[in-house]
């Protein structure tokens, strides 16, 4: 039972990161009908930038800020410079271009930093508190929950309570009508990509200290898990992404806790297959208001 509790909290902590990353995927899907397969590589790139700053200045938080701002920048650049010019008549084109970006980013990172794992320190202790003799949560887990919670609340407020959020939704839902009404549709798209990439960067900064460290391929498996989470929730649903992320996190924690860590990737694959074949629109899909 102790172990179960520990794994549950561990899973929720992992799941929070997956939720943030899945949220980033959902943001771009809603804005542009593209699954951003370069999301993982973009997040790794900003994490490298962040940790470079941390190593140079000694301040984790300065590096953290650089990573998030770097996310905003890289998201906007990718949309303005590349994605805007992709012919979207076939859904394959966006995917293939994103994969090209993955190759570029991983290649450039490898050229600058080398292909070794670089240690990445966590800003808080990762030793778990003992509650009644059971190790439950670490300070770092609390930091993860707080950060992801803040992102979810901020995004919710942005999209439901501000005029910018309304414009973004309008631009995604009916670009032509929005343009007639004076909404800068292109600008909203860029903003959406920037926000999504920043959220992805946050997820990257949160997950890297808990894994082996910084590596150009560090986010490959995380991307798969987050994609599974996003599909589980329905690619269109932010709430679904958060719930899906937590579910995937719990599943991975239990599987690696009880069956061994090497089984975890296979568990993700099996879950993805089951979801895609059983309920491809996700658990939280509403009635088909619009199709891709």
């Amino acid at each position, binding site marked *: 039972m102790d172990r179960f509790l520990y794994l549950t909290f561990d899973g929720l902590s992992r799941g929070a990161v997956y939720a943030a990353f899945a949220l980033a995927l959902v943001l771009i899907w809603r804005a542009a009908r593209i699954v951003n397969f370069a999301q993982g590589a973009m997040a790794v790139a900003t994490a490298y930038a962040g940790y470079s700053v941390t190593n140079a200045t000694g301040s984790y938080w300065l590096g953290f800020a650089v990573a998030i701002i770097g996310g905003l920048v890289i998201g906007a650049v990718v949309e303005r410079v590349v994605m805007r010019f992709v012919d979207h008549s076939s859904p394959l084109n966006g995917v293939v271009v994103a*994969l*090209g970006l993955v190759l570029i980013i991983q290649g*450039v990172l490898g050229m600058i930093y080398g292909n070794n794992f670089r240690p990445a320190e966590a800003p808080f202790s990762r030793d778990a508190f003992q509650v009644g003799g059971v190790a439950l949560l670490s300070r770092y887990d609390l930091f993860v929950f707080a950060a992801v919670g803040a992102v979810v609340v901020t995004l919710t407020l942005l999209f439901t309570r501000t005029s910018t959020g309304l414009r973004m939704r309008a631009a995604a839902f009916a670009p032509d009508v929005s343009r007639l009404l004076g909404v800068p549709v292109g600008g909203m798209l860029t903003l959406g990509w920037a926000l999504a990439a920043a959220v992805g960067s946050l997820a990257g900064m949160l997950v890297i200290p808990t894994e082996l460290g910084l590596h150009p391929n560090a986010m*490959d498996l995380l991307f798969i898990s987050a994609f599974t989470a996003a599909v589980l929730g329905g690619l269109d649903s932010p709430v679904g992404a958060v719930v899906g992320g937590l579910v995937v996190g719990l599943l991975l924690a239990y599987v690696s806790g009880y069956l061994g860590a090497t089984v975890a990737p296979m568990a993700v694959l099996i879950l993805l297959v089951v979801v895609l074949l059983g309920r491809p629109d996700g658990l939280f899909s509403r009635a088909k208001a619009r199709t891709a």
Partner: protein
Amino acid sequence: MTTLAQRATKTTNPPKLAKSKIVPLVVTIISATAIVALTYVLPPFRNYQLATIGAYLCVTAGLTVLTGLNGQLSLGHGALMATGAYTLALWQEKFNLLLPGIVVAIAVTTLAGAVIGLAAARLRGPYLAGLTLAVAVVVPSITSTFDETFNSDQGLSVALDPPPGVIPVEQWQAWTCWAAALLTVLLLAYVIRGRFGRDMRAVRDDETAAKLAGVSVARTQVLAFVISSACAGLAGALFAVLAQSVSPGAFPLTLSLFLVMAIVIGGLGRLSGALIGAFLLVALPSAAQSIAEDAGSQHLEGNLALTVFGVVLVLVMLAAPGGLASLRIPRMNRKQTRINRKQKGQE
């Protein structure tokens, strides 16, 4: 009704021996002669590279049929190649009979491909890409899960008899790989010229219309996936023969991405494009390698090729989505396809 009946009899006239049936055979025979002649001229290392191109051609040809003609993007072909390679390694450990081993490797990979294909036939666009991406990332990790069979990250060595007679190993490898590659391309050429090729294109262009015309969409998609898996299995087995070892490190996610890049750059759905792609897969890393050695930088090694591939892929997608092989199409044709595409986009 009479006109219909007349038309019907017209189409059932005895088929003339079409030019399209002979051309692939002629091209194959000429290529085979050229390759054999080439292997006598080239130094051993170049022969090894030539063999590698042949091995890549098997998988790129299969993948371009799947993605270009049937519209299914697979990022999992690297993992399918790993399946073929490991099957051959395990077979050779027990029996040491190369030719049956390759057949078994193809069969096992075909089976694995059928499983993925059954799932893939129900998925579209980014969902399919995501699933196959997961396959590419996850399958290499299976070697760690069952490390007693697959020996984890170290991988297995492939036991091989020396080549018959006095032929140098590299030359024998080039012959083996190109025999397989040319056979694959020849078979694929007939497949895409035949009824099944038409079915695949019909399904790619408009599933509803294909269904109305009596084409089974799911069957066509699964079969296309199976065919291209068999090609990937063959390529994997050839890679095991070439490297004389298999390890998960030889089949990373980047390999799958490289394959997609190769067929996109070469031109989706064209066997000539698959050849261009296979050539680039060997030539670009080799060129990047020599640049990196000249610069004396370890960081450049491998990563330069990665970056160049990425840049080329993005540029090709933005500038010429038809790939390099499409550049020789007459202008009229291209205009027409563009118009078609536009109309499709408006629907």
